[in-house]
Structure formats: structure tokens, C-alpha cells
């Protein structure tokens, strides 16, 4: 079944963690952006996107992530990703997202890395 897209949001210390489930297309991207804006309004500057349960992304979904990145950079925040499928990591590399965001293998490593960072 093409699962309907969902995002779980939680806070781990200073880091907002968004776990996505499903295809990151226009609908998925928009949902992530909404959840992000809610968290952002709540305060915080560190945002981790756990994409472990999203096997595919498309360029429309990606455009929402750039929108989010712009918002995060505006407030000197940090954006990170983890559990990326190889094809998603490749997509981010092609776009140059890695200049602005870090990709960690796991949530655990991401949280460790992001807590340390200023």
C-alpha cells in the first residue's frame, strides 16, 4: 500500500527530531514543512530529519526541504539528516545540500554530533 505520508515530531534535549514515513513528494514535503513550522514557532534551532522510513523522494519534495533549510539558516540554526537511503543521500549530494546540512548514519550519532555542536 502506498502509505499515506506521516511525520512524527519529538524533542530530544535541544534537538527537534522529525521522523518521516512514506514518499516525500509534494504532499510529503508540505507535511514536513508544516511540522517544521510548528516546532520552529515553539523555539529551538537544531533540527534532525530521520528519513529512515522514506525510501523515495522527488524533486518537489526536495524543494520543501530547501525551503526549510532557508528558514533554519535565517535563524542560524542547524539542519541534519539521518538514516538516508543511498538514493536520497545521492540526491542531497547532487544538490549540494551537504554544504549546509550534515548527514549522520543514525539518530544516535546525529544527536551526539548535534548536542556537541554550538
Amino acid at each position, binding site marked *: 500500500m*502506498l502509505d499515506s505520508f506521516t511525520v512524527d515530531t519529538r524533542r530530544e534535549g535541544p534537538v527537534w527530531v522529525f521522523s518521516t514515513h512514506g*514518499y516525500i*513528494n509534494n504532499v510529503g514535503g508540505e507535511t514536513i514543512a508544516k511540522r517544521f513550522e510548528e516546532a520552529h514557532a515553539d523555539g529551538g534551532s537544531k533540527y534532525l530529519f530521520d528519513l529512515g522510513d522514506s525510501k*523515495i523522494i*522527488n*524533486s*518537489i519534495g*526536495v*524543494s*520543501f526541504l*530547501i*525551503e526549510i*533549510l*532557508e528558514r533554519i*539558516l*535565517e535563524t542560524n540554526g542547524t539542519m541534519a539528516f539521518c538514516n538516508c*537511503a*543511498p*538514493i536520497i543521500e*545521492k*540526491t542531497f549530494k*547532487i*544538490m*549540494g*545540500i551537504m*554544504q*549546509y546540512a550534515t548527514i549522520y548514519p543514525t539518530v544516535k550519532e546525529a544527536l551526539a554530533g548535534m548536542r556537541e555542536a554550538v
Partner: protein
Amino acid sequence: MNSAREDITHPESVKEINLTIPMIPDMEIAAGKTAEAVAEVMNLDEDKTAEVSMALIEACLNSFEHSHSEDRKVYITFRVEDSELTIILRDKGSGFDPESVEKPDLERMLRPGIRKRGWGLKLMESMMDSLTIESGPGGTVVTMKKKR
């Protein structure tokens, strides 16, 4: 023991799969999955298989979104050869001039008010070994190749 399948030899020339999909949300996934299956059958590795699938998904989305074709269909041919997989995608839309499409630039895009779209062609080009586009008032033909 059991008889194996009969008569499944074939001339190289028939290794062509045709797929026509309607321009309906999520249908690009059907195209992507067919691409995956074709790539698997020709033993492309997992990374290349995913790349081919994503490139085709992007090509479909472009036709869905930009072609304004009246028949609302995308025509796809997979041509399997020993050395490579060729995917030819056609729509009967209004076409565009690939030369005049601006290359996406993330740094520029991160400025406020700038449109974040425009990654489809770049991703298709990067995921495949070659990408050529013929486009005119009769529609668009995208030809993509992936080496084994």
C-alpha cells in the same frame, strides 16, 4: 523431472518493454517500479537500479506537471541491451526549450523569495549516464541511458 519452460529464446531486438501511464498522482511510482524490475532483470546493482527509477520518476513528473498534454499520458520504452539500459519517455504536450532552462543553484535558492524548484532535469542528468531531450510543439522525448 518436470519439463522446464519451452521456447523462451528470443532475438536481442525484442528486449523492449513498453509502458503507458496516465498522468495521475502517484502513477510515476508505477513507472519507477517497472524501471526497477527491468533493471533487476538485467542485473543492474541496487544503486544503479534506484538511480534509474528516480530519474524516470522525475521525467514522468515533468510530463505530468509541465507538458499540458491533452491525452494525459506518458509513453515509456525500456530498451535492454547487453551494455546498457535505455529509457525513452514521450509526452504529446506543448514542449519546451531545454536550452533556456536555468541550472539550479542551491546557494542562490537559499535567499528569501527565490523559487526552490527546478531540480528535476539536474537530478535526471546526474542519476543517468546520458540524457537527451528533443522537444517541440508536438511534445517532448526524453532519452536516458544507464550503463551496466
